[in-house]
């Protein structure tokens, strides 16, 4: 089984803000399989959202659209390979 992190552990190890993580889960931008237990995918996705907001200046409205498009892109790539 892949390693899972409590939100607090994820916050410590990856330096993501706890309130952000909670906000992301509430908005269903990340959807942990078990409640409040993040796996590698959830953490990587949360960090991408942090970059989108902090570096790219994306607002809350646009975050789900960008995630949706990226997920489609990645799934396309995995089909082509």
């Amino acid at each position, binding site marked *: 089984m892949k390693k899972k992190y409590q939100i607090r552990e994820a916050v410590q*190890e*990856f*330096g*993501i803000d706890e309130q952000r993580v909670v906000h992301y889960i509430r908005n269903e931008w990340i*959807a942990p*399989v078990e409640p409040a237990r993040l796996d*590698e*995918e959830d*953490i*990587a*996705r949360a*960090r*991408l959202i*942090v*970059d989108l907001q*902090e*570096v*790219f*200046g994306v607002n809350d409205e646009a975050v789900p659209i960008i*995630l949706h498009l*990226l*997920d*489609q*892109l*990645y*799934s*396309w*790539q*995995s*089909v*082509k*390979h």
Partner: protein
Amino acid sequence: MDPYVTLGVSRTATQNEIKAAYRKLAKKLHPDLNPGNKVAEKQFKDVSAAYEILEDPVKRAKFDHGESEPDQGGARQGPSKQGPFYYETQRGGGGRYTQSFDEDLFKNFGDLFGRARAEPQEDLRVYRMEVDFKDAVLGAEREVTLPEGRKLQIKIPPGVESGQKLRLKGFGEIELHVRESPVFHRNGRDIEIEIPVSLSEAILGAEIRVPTVDGAVLLKIPPSSNSGTRLRIRGKGVGASGLRGDEIVTLTVVLPETTDADLRDKIAEWSLTHSYNPREKLENTS
């Protein structure tokens, strides 16, 4: 590595200029926007490492005085510390978040690309699941109980069809069976429905309530709408929000159950001066 050169800023650049330069480069080079592009990824790491030095006045001053060589470790730099980029967790069809798209893509393009998924042969059991017509159209999340008593949250992507399978990591597959609807019929991304209208509604026009999978909506029937007239309600068809097909309404003109004397007499009178032959085309072709 000179962080000033990497970010393309002068040694006297303000913090705001540095931030702006970093953001501009990061937008272009971010690995999640350039999945698999190793050159961009390397540049992004360099740019992030450079920014980490210059954004921090203490580190910047140290560098300016030649006190420390910035480390160029392979680990991801920048605001967050280590671990894979998001795209790396999703590639090869290995990610949860991209899986819902796989079903659609598999259906539409699987043959084209002759996809050979190197799926590890895990315990491949096939379960069966009944899906409501509406859930299949709009997508839904449902809890299912496996025969062995285990409960699972299943995400049904919008637009699934009977026979489609959802992969469940570690459990096997679920084959979906979509229940028919007594009123709606699916035709690709559109939903078709037949709506009866009265004689007067057909002739004079009307605004009537029409069911859709999202609930009833008002539909304008233009005057002189014959049986077979097709009207389109945009965005009430199959698919994810924003990408949905339409609902196609086909009208059927229905006479009153009993024809009263009033109607009979008026029509008789009308037909004396207004005869028409709806079978004209038929007769001409035979």
